[in-house]
């Protein structure tokens, strides 16, 4: 059973990790497209529309991948985690329903106009469709984050015969960690998109596609990243303090902090040893963790040893994965901060905008194209593994929810999923850069076999 549990967890993690990559892009890219569109409406300059046309294709591709990988998610609950819906279905059900329906609503109605409609509907309607798609994606994210936050900080319900029943929907939706988690995720999405746009635009710039559209896209992306990075750090800090209040075991694992006490150092590097219950090769900055978590230099922080029951049952997550994914997130974030600020400083100092960026810096942006994905995934691993052994904090454990499927079957399907995902991810990244190269050679990328609507037979080949 243990093996099935672990394999099922890995399978769910694989599926949701693959899925979240694409919403992370579409949530913010919708708003960036709206920005391009509004700038085009205001200035009438074609460069904004050029940027729009390129990135709306990446949006379509990401949206398609998000939809197909999202279908997998709605089945995973039943195939691997039937206990989840049996116990908390009355609360998770409506939230998931609203998530699915909002996503539906926007896909069904406005996405078509946004993707295919620029030359077929009035300009204001196309702008409105872009807004509604961006808004819908954000709403969809809102509902799923509400459910996820509720699993971390549940409230507004009562247990009757072992099943959760909703008593206060307002309390469920606005549960204590929701505002922090939602803001943190939306900002993560904007940063991911900023670095993707910056990376791909830098790539096009380097191979000679120095069009006005590339210029504005690169500039928009670098400035957005530089502005949002410090905000994200501040929000992340507030989110951490919120977690310390409601899930102290998670924070202790993030910090690799075993024994409750004051003057806690901020550990930069260590190998947490769960069996010996101590860190090996620890390097830290004295008192800094105390200061970050309590805002006093000698503040007391609860340690992991407080979360072991009398009989030796461990009630905190495995330390090493939480400790390390947290550091990966922070490290990536710091790299993103440094790069975006340096780039901004260079653009300002030389007063030549994008032209002022030296070549190595452009290469750095290309290398960091998907840094947002790494930071986002690492952050999700921190918070989700950090909630273990609970599935819904204090209400049900992950082990209670898992389906009794034979372990080899879970392993077999897991391998199949991983193979498909690896393939698709390579194809996705390949196609993005392929489109960028094609675009830089001045070739038309608006080609796609699509049927002519009977009402508008004026098919104009773009060449």
């Amino acid at each position, binding site marked *: 059973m243990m093996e099935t549990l672990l394999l099922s967890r890995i399978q769910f993690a694989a599926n949701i990790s693959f899925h979240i990559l694409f919403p992370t892009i579409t949530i913010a890219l919708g708003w960036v497209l709206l920005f391009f569109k509004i700038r085009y409406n205001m200035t009438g300059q074609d460069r904004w529309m050029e940027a729009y046309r390129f990135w709306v294709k990446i949006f*379509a591709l990401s949206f*398609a*991948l998000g939809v197909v990988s999202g279908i997998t998610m709605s089945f995973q609950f*039943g195939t691997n985690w039937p206990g989840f819906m049996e116990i908390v279905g009355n609360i998770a*059900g409506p939230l*998931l329903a609203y998530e699915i329906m909002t996503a539906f609503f926007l896909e069904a109605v406005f996405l078509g106009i946004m993707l295919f409609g620029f030359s077929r509907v009035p300009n204001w309607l196309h702008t409105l469709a872009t807004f509604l798609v961006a808004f819908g994606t954000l709403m969809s994210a809102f509902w799923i984050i509400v459910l996820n936050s509720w699993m971390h900080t549940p409230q507004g319900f009562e247990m009757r015969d072992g099943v959760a029943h909703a008593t206060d929907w307002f309390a469920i939706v606005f549960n204590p960690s929701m505002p922090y988690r939602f803001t943190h995720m939306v900002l993560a999405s904007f940063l991911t998109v900023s670095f993707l746009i910056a990376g791909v635009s830098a790539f096009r710039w380097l191979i000679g596609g120095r069009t006005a559209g590339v210029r504005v896209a690169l500039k928009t992306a670098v400035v957005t990243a530089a502005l949002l990075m410090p905000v994200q750090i501040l929000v992340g800090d507030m989110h951490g303090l919120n977690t310390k209040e409601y899930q102290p075991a998670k924070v202790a694992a993030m910090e690799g902090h075993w024994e409750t006490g004051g003057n806690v150092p901020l550990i930069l590097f260590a190998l947490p040893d769960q069996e010996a219950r101590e860190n090996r090769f620890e390097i830290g900055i004295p008192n800094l963790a105390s200061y970050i978590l309590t805002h006093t230099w000698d503040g007391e922080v609860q340690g992991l040893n407080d979360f072991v029951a009398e009989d030796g049952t461990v009630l905190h997550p495995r330390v090493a994965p939480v400790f390390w994914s947290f550091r990966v997130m922070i490290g990536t974030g710091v790299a993103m901060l440094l790069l975006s600020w340096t780039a901004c400083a260079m653009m300002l100092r030389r007063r030549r905008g994008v032209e002022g960026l030296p070549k190595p810096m452009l290469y750095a942006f290309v290398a960091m194209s998907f840094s947002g994905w790494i930071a986002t995934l690492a952050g999700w691993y921190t918070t989700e593994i950090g909630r273990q052994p609970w599935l819904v904090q204090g209400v049900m454990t992950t082990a209670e929810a898992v389906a009794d499927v034979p372990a080899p079957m879970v392993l077999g399907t897991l391998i199949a999923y991983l193979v498909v995902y690896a393939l698709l991810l390579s194809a996705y990244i390949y196609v993005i850069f392929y489109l960028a190269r094609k675009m830089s050679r001045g070739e038309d*990328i608006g080609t796609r*076999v699509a*049927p002519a609507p009977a009402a508008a037979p004026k098919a104009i080949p773009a060449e």
Partner: protein
Amino acid sequence: MNTFGDPAIWLPFVFAGLMGVSILIYVVLDGFDLGVGVLFPFADDDEKDRMIASIGPFWDANETWLVLAVGLLLVAFPVAHGAILTALYLPVAIMLIGLILRGVAFEFRAKAPAPHKHLWNNAFFAGSLMTSLSQGFMLGMYIMGLQWTWANAGFALLTAVFLTVGYSFIGATWVIHKTDEYLQRKAVDWAKGGIWGLVLGIGLISMATPLVSARIFDKWFSWPEALYLSPLPIISALLVIWLWWMLRRMPYMNDRWSWLPFAAATSLWVMAFGGMAYSFYPYVVPEQLTIYESASAPESLFIILIGTMFVLPTIMGYTILAYTVFRGKATELRYD
């Protein structure tokens, strides 16, 4: 909330109805575009492009009906969702991988470099085939009460083949409607070849369902129910005969009635689905769990119902709009 009687009774019934409608719409709509994918190896490269063009604006929305159906099962009948999907673990995984493959193949075959296109064509075919076969297999296992025995798996393999052929049949009738000239005549031949899969499949399921369960047997073969139900098989048989008669004369002058085979095929699916729904009601997990036993709490269902009341008409309206806007023959065009 008590206007319509006990909400613990009418809410599950309403949701079972909504779910049934979603599944029906799904098997008709995604049925034809899966069928088009299954027919891919029989077409040459230009025909493939036209076939893709004929389902291009629809397949995405078609697939969302599956998400809605499974979503409704998940949120309204959570216990049944767990029981059914755990029992169908392997075919579900194969179906999901199939759906992913064909979904992305659609995007990639147009955006990837030309030399890679045939790879994505193959992925589209493989994905469509995997999806169709696994859905047919799940249908068979569901009829057999989700019990894994060799005999049941054998039966499910048969339904897998028949459903796939059935999908390719409805796919062929769609191609008849959306294309012309050589490809259309080819599609008429495909439809003539595929109709037998449908007939055998419906026949097999109609015979097996009452034999598996005495309860279903009594529902069909006791007097006077048998009389009221008799139009169902009779109309279905007439539809099949009419379809065969029509297909032998297709295409008509000036392409008249090209939509009729698809409409007739759809009616056939509605009949078959109606019969199955009648057989299994009130069970959602055959002979184990009724919709009333597995439903969520009424207050949760009510909240979901409010959202559904807004969303379902919108999706229906949009579906009709999309099919109206993109009516007529599928032609090639570049877009941006």
